[in-house]
């Protein structure tokens, strides 16, 4: 294994912030090198330096032994450094093969050789065991297929270094398996792979080496075989995370909300559940099982066709989020960038978003907004230079904390969390869980939707499992285990029991 790229004493400073301080690390061909760290640790900056999107303030880069300045992403691409980005970077209306060969079209004379491009695209995707019609526009396909197409596009450029930025965040287990086998194939071909992920289990499975960053500092680089997850976590957060999930003992209080055989839309019926004060209740199920729809029905976003809701002992007919919020119900939505936050507004604007209208009959209280925001920033330890920072500039974990601050400001009694820790690093995840815990200790109730089974098992008192639009099982106490939930949500137990 030979070294292909080496960073020496790299510093990157922005006005007021040092994103990288004295980072030296080298990457080798034929090796999967994982880069881990909390959000804001400097991973993204490091990648951008490698790809040529940022210039280091100080330090030197050696590429294939020669000192090199990667002055632009274009130069990076010419050198053979490519990235698979977190965001989906495809043109929706172009076909799969047009996307894969965008700007690198194969020509026969002066015209495009469409047949050859289609054939090659099919081949590339076949490696991921994806057989789709490559002549159809990509907008027809799901997000996980987009990701695979994007990866195929990058591989097709025959790079020497590929940077994967959280490639598996939206992939199913089967897709992750085929991604990993193709990463192994790339490795055998001698390509250097830089792999970023928050899922530590994956790192143990795929990585040869692990580099840990914290607050812009290089904490260490070690062979993956010498590290267990706990070691990595310790290095990332700089302290012991003794227990991933800690819950306080809370006496279960009176019933807060009860859904009685709700029917939402075709195929979504028999939805009955209850949440008591002092409880965190899980709603597990596969993506598409109808969990988010239940949350949105309680908020009054989706209509309820049949059935009834009782909230604090009285019949409740959700009409709109504004009414539900007034009654003390709040949803921390699944897609924080789209449903939770106004990205180009400040942290203070966002924290006050759901409450500023309550403060006065007519006037908008800018000063009150600032004070409320400062308090919330302190209480939830949101990492931001000031309350006037744009939310867009915050890391994922801190953005999620802003959404939670928004929820807490409404003095809600019943919170629904839809995937509370997606795209959030270990440290922030723990903090978010602590906030959930103290919320129920203070007498609130939580309904938590999550696809992260350890999170469901670790956090919830009871769990309802949804399968194809129905709640098929309620699990209590000792029954709440990974295995039980998985069996019901995958439907294997459902068929057996004839539910």
């Amino acid at each position: 294994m030979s070294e292909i790229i080496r960073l020496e004493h790299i510093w990157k400073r922005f006005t007021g912030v040092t994103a990288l301080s004295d980072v030296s690390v080298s990457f080798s061909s034929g090796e999967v090198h994982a880069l881990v760290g909390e959000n804001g640790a400097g991973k993204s900056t490091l990648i951008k330096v490698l790809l040529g999107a940022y210039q280091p303030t100080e330090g030197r880069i050696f590429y294939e032994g020669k000192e090199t300045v990667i002055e632009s992403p274009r130069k990076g691409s010419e050198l053979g450094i490519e990235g698979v980005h977190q965001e989906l970077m495809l043109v929706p209306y172009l076909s799969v093969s047009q996307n894969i060969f965008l700007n690198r079209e194969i020509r026969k004379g002066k015209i495009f050789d469409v047949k050859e491009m289609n054939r090659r695209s099919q081949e590339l995707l076949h490696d991921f065991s994806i057989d789709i019609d490559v002549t159809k526009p990509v907008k027809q396909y799901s997000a996980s297929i987009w990701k695979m197409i994007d990866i195929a596009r990058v591989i097709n450029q025959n790079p020497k270094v590929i940077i994967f930025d959280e490639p598996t965040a939206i992939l199913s287990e089967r897709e992750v398996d085929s991604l990993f086998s193709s990463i192994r194939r790339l490795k055998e071909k001698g390509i250097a792979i830089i792999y970023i992920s928050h899922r530590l289990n994956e790192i143990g499975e795929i990585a040869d080496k692990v580099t840990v960053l914290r607050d812009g500092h290089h904490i260490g680089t070690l062979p993956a075989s010498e590290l267990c997850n706990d070691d990595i976590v310790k290095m990332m957060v700089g302290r012991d995370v003794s227990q991933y999930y800690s819950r306080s003992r809370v006496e279960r209080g009176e019933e807060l909300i009860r859904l009685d055989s709700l029917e939402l839309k075709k195929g979504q019926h028999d939805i009955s559940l209850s949440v008591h004060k002092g409880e965190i209740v899980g709603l597990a199920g596969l993506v598409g099982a109808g969990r988010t729809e239940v949350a949105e029905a309680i908020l009054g976003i989706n209509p309820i066709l049949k059935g009834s809701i009782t909230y604090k002992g009285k019949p409740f007919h959700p009409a709109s989020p504004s009414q539900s919020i007034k009654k003390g119900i709040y949803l921390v939505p699944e897609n924080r960038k789209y449903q939770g936050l106004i990205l180009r507004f400040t942290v203070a604007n966002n924290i006050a978003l759901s409450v500023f209208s309550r403060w006065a009959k007519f006037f908008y209280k800018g000063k009150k907004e600032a004070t409320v925001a400062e308090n919330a920033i302190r209480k939830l330890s949101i990492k931001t230079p000031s309350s006037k920072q744009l939310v867009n500039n915050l890391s994922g974990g801190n953005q999620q904390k802003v959404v939670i601050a928004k929820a807490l400001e409404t003095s809600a009694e019943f919170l629904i969390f839809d995937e509370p820790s997606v795209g959030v690093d270990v440290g922030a995840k723990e903090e978010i869980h602590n906030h959930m815990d103290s919320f129920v200790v203070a007498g609130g109730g939580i309904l938590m939707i999550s696809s992260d089974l350890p999170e469901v098992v670790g956090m919830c008192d009871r769990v309802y499992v949804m399968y194809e639009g129905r709640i098929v099982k309620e699990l209590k106490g000792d029954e709440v285990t990974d295995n039980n939930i998985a069996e019901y949500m995958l439907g294997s137990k459902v068929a057996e029991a004839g539910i």
Partner: protein
Amino acid sequence: MNKEKAYSLFFEKGLYRIMILVVMCVLLTCISDSFLSLSNIMNIFRQASILLILAVGATGTILAKGIDLSLAGVMSLSGCVCGYVLNAGYPVPVAILAALSVGIGFGFVNGFLVGVVKIPAFVSTYGVKYIANGLALMLMGSNIFFGFPESFLFLGVGFLGPVPVLVIWALIITAIMYVFLERSKFGHQIYCVGANSTAAFYSGISTLRTYFMVHVISSTCAAIAGILQASRMNAAQAGMGESFQMLAVASIVIGGTSMAGGEGNVIGGILGALILTLITNGMNLLNISSQAQPLVTGAVIVLAVFLDVQMKHIEGKKAVKAAIA
């Protein structure tokens, strides 16, 4: 004032537009002797007044990521209804109330189409403009109504001391809109809905009410503009508001209010309207033929928006530098 605050005021709040205005005034003073005369300055303010009322009224629709393309139609129809009722011999307040109800009614129609039926504002308000114009034509045919009572004419051509009444109307409405959009919670809700209607909705802001609000305000201001135009001209006819439509939208956009929603302010719209009026006034003073005037106006609009984009670019670069990677 520290450097950062001055910077923010100049670029982010768009105060450089005032400089454009000042530069234009200085140039016109140098070129033409009559520019700085009191009568000409009052004339400019009078000319700007109606445009100003339309522009500040419609600012909310653009802030909410929509647009109001019906305002010229509503203005014409309201002016015509006002003239029609006056000619039928009813007292002035009745005529004004009738015209205002036309405006409010069309505001609800627009709000309904955008908020409930969810037709994009660009299309729905464009259609509504034709409906309003059609109604005005049916009401008036090709007639011009004129010879309105003195008390009505006072609204548009009268003076209070040295100040034209028309200018006072414009100042009052601008002040109300400034307080409403930039100091009230309703105004802040409009900004939120424009910047991300989904997040605003999930956060408990009534997007539907917001759409109704901005359209009722815009159409009501258009109706006021129609009444004042009828009074100022001492005449009402179908199509009387037509020339104001794109000027009003251009004033808002030149003023830095973003078509992408959630960004902009009332002061910018005022400056935009003044800049556009100054151009016309300057061209008249310079005896530029009326055939050539649209060309100059068009060029200035493009130039102004280009400048704005450049300024945002500078601002954006600064923001990127400040951002944590």
